[in-house]
């Protein structure tokens, strides 16, 4: 209200001032200004009174928002399948569902929420949760114990924040080692084995790159994390309730430094490179220029399209440390705390999406292993990749969902890039990164 009023007042004041200064060069006998005003946009003003819509433009009114009984925002990849489910649900319950595509659900949901324009349900990754809770923009959901027990426990853990449940999960994703079976018939057990074989292929001109793993000039902690985890390091320690503790950073722990030394060693052997980034990592594998890529289920369609024969293996282990463990990411449905259709939204999410058939449909969104065990078992029978992804994720930790993670990406990424490129020594650089992260978190 106040904003609105101020704007109008401001507009008026300016109009008066300028109008007051008008006059001067008018000398025509009759003024024909009307033709001008009438033939252009109708002369109107002010933000609240805003101009008449040029009617030619509004070919239709796409704002179904207001009429729908449930509005869902999803990215373009998942939207078709969610639409399919929404139609089913809508038919069964006599409600109109609108599935809208957002290019950046997380960011745009934040903006829309502030303006009171939020959709009822959004689809996204579990690590948004801390941010959503902090903003008070997500509503708790109640999953009866009976229902919750049917899910992968890791997926259920991902829906929790301060012991409250906030979402319904549908897929679990993680990195694995994807291998070109023509170039490398056998799965490497250790990282050394992988590097040795990769180098042999490069030397034999069968490949140009030992391993494709996204680093880039500013680093990629998500893809670099398995090195830290293999050596007992990581990012955050945990509280007694199992939740990550932003005050317990372990970026400069002995384990993390050991993992970082492996980054350095791999960098030196050109098995990791800051020249491989999100733009070319998949291309290298899809064009047969490398035998190995560390990536997730989302890359597979590109490999299939390129006709590459591949196998999915668990990440290898690092000598002197242990097996590399990737972060687990969980895809889920959130309900807005300001949902205009809270009842429909809650019903859709808790009663409909928790069914086996819904979860099987959602499997088609990027072939992520379903979070519901019954659905997982069903699709694992038809798609051999599913069990492989799940096996590669075994023992993996959930990606931190606390807001403090926002403070980690930049500093840890840059540290990784500097260590891989040999610009900095692992120990000193990880210590500096820890300091920077701690300062970022303290700043709030």
């Amino acid at each position, binding site marked *: 209200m106040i904003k609105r009023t101020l704007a109008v007042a401001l507009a008026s004041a300016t109009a008066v001032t300028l109008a007051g200064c008008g006059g001067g060069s008018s000398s025509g006998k009759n*003024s024909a200004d009307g033709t001008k005003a009438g033939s252009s946009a109708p002369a*109107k003003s002010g933000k609240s009174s805003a101009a008449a819509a040029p009617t030619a433009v509004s070919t239709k009114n796409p704002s179904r928002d207001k009429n729908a009984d449930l509005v869902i925002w999803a990215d373009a990849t998942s939207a078709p399948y969610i639409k399919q489910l929404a139609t089913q649900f809508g038919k069964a319950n006599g409600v109109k569902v609108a599935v809208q595509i957002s290019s950046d659900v997380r960011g745009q949901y934040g903006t829309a929420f502030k303006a009171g324009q939020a959709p009822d349900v959004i689809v996204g990754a579990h690590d948004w949760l801390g941010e959503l809770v902090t903003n008070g923009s997500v509503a708790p959901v109640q999953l009866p114990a009976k229902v919750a027990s049917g899910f992968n426990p890791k997926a259920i853990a991902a829906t929790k924040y301060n012991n409250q449940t906030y979402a319904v999960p549908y897929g679990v994703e993680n990195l694995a080692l994807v291998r070109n079976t023509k170039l490398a018939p056998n799965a490497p057990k250790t990282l050394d084995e992988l590097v040795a074989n990769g180098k042999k292929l490069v030397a034999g001109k069968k490949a140009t790159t030992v391993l494709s793993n996204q680093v880039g000039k500013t680093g990629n902690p998500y893809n670099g994390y398995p090195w830290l985890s293999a050596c007992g390091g990581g990012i955050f320690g945990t509280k007694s309730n199992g939740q990550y503790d932003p005050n317990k950073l372990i970026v400069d722990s002995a384990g993390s430094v050991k993992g970082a030394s492996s980054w350095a060693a791999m960098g030196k052997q050109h098995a990791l490179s800051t020249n491989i980034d999100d733009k070319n990592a998949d291309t290298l594998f899809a064009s047969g220029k490398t035998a190995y890529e560390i990536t997730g289920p989302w890359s597979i369609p590109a490999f299939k399209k390129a006709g590459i024969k591949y196998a999915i293996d668990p990440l290898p282990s690092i000598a002197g440390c242990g097996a590399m463990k990737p972060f687990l990411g969980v895809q889920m449905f959130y309900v807005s705390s300001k949902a205009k259709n809270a009842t429909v939204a809650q019903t859709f999410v808790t009663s409909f999406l928790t069914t086996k058939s819904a979860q099987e449909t959602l499997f088609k969104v990027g072939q992520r292993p379903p979070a519901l065990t019954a659905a997982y078992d069903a699709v694992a029978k038809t798609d051999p990749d599913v069990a492989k992804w799940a096996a590669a994720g075994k023992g993996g930790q959930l990606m931190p969902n606390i807001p403090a993670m926002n403070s980690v990406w930049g500093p840890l990424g840059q540290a990784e890039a500097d260590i891989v490129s040999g610009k900095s020594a692992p120990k000193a650089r990880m210590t500096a990164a820890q300091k920077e992260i701690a300062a970022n978190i303290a700043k709030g």
Partner: protein
Amino acid sequence: MAVSTETSSSVIGSSPARTPVWALALKWVAIAAALLLALYVASKLADHGHTLAVVGTAFVAMCVLVIYGTRRAVPMKYLFVGLALLIGLQVWPIVYTAMTAFTNYGQGHLASKEDATAQDIAYSVRQVPGSPTYTLTVAVKDGTSTVAGPLYFLLVDEKGHTFVGDAKGLNQLGKNGLTIDAGKITKAEGYTTLNLLQANKRKDLSSFAVPTDGGGGIKASGFAAAYNGKPTLVWDKKADTITDTTTKQVYVAEGAQWVPQSGKGDALPVGWKENVGLANFRTLFTNSTIRDGFLGIFAWNIAFSVLSVLTTFVLGMLLALLLNDSRIKGRGIYRSLLILPYAIPVFVSALVWASMFNQQFGLINNLTHLNIDWFGSPWAARAAVLITNLWLGFPYMFVVCTGALQSLPGDVMEAAKIDGAGAWRTLRSITTPLLLVAVGPLLIASFAFNFNNFGLIYLLTKGGPFTGGNSQLGSTDLLITYAYRLALGGTNPNYGLAGAVAIIIFIIVGLLSFPGFLRSKALEEVN
């Protein structure tokens, strides 16, 4: 735009031109339409209860009448529509942004204290340990309206016991007269059950609870299930404290958040928005990283924007001059090809250039057989950014200069030629100065645009490479990318701080452009 040109032939004729009747009629029809529209908008606003906006609309309508209905205020007739749009859609958002600079508005601080606390309490609702979950049927008593009648919960617990709950409490419900299907009551004598759509319209459903012993309440989870939940937080408004009934932790309001009084433990997640005065500005001026990094970033920022304007303008102008010769065949095709970089959306171009600059796999190193780490070393990265920006920007200057060249008076050029001035001298002392009169202000605007060219830097280098073992001060960082990271890249993005940064950048660019302003004044007075 559809102004008739039929009359144009007579305009410069000898008889006194009179405004035709149709034009006058059209004018008044348009004014009437505008007033009607204002009336419509005002009535809509009144429906929504925006009294002051109604007054504002009336005022705008009056302006329309005064400006277009009378012969006064001629300049306003030409400026009104544009100005109104400018003020409503550009000035106002800027003022709004500037206003947030004096608040702590940001992640975790979006709502009022009242709302934030309510959210904190809602988040503390837990199912009462050991309590059953129910299947739920939402109903009203027969004869009452489904829209407004008092709500009843018809419940079936896990053991098959049936209950009815209302705002007073929970009671057993005899199975007589009930139809139960798959564990859920579908019909009950004396009650009208609500379907999903009807239940969805009951906005009181989300706050409705059937009170149970021990302070809990049976609440709906969606439309078909219910559980006995209880908030663990209690807000004592008088003392302004919150107590956690399970842990006995007491929270006090501090720094726009509920923090534990004991100092041990976490604050409640949702904080609120409040005014912080000049605190955001103080942060900017006292932060040591900002102080240390500012000069370097500022210097590069200026160099970047000046060089960007200069290179794009020079290339664009030269190409415009080159093609401004009617003897060149295929000029149309040439021009269209030259503006192609302009026609590709900027994020596509940035993506392509970023791939081409890749040290190992990029086209540029491959074609030139160089091994430059374009985005890994500071000077190479700066060069890469400038080259990309030249490519992106020269077509704009080319288009502008081509247009502006048409205004150069042919007789002056002719005269210069007859005087025997060489091409170079004509270019230097006649063409360029004349061109600058027309495009000078655009160069200032272009400078301002590039000064804040967030998109380019963000898409190409994200401000990197970062040297010196941190991730704060990048070699290609502009003030805006640096500020963006600072304000919005931390644990909790702080829009208030971003607003303060915006104000300061606004002032800096304004001051920097001031000499340009003065110059444009001098240039203008020539005419």
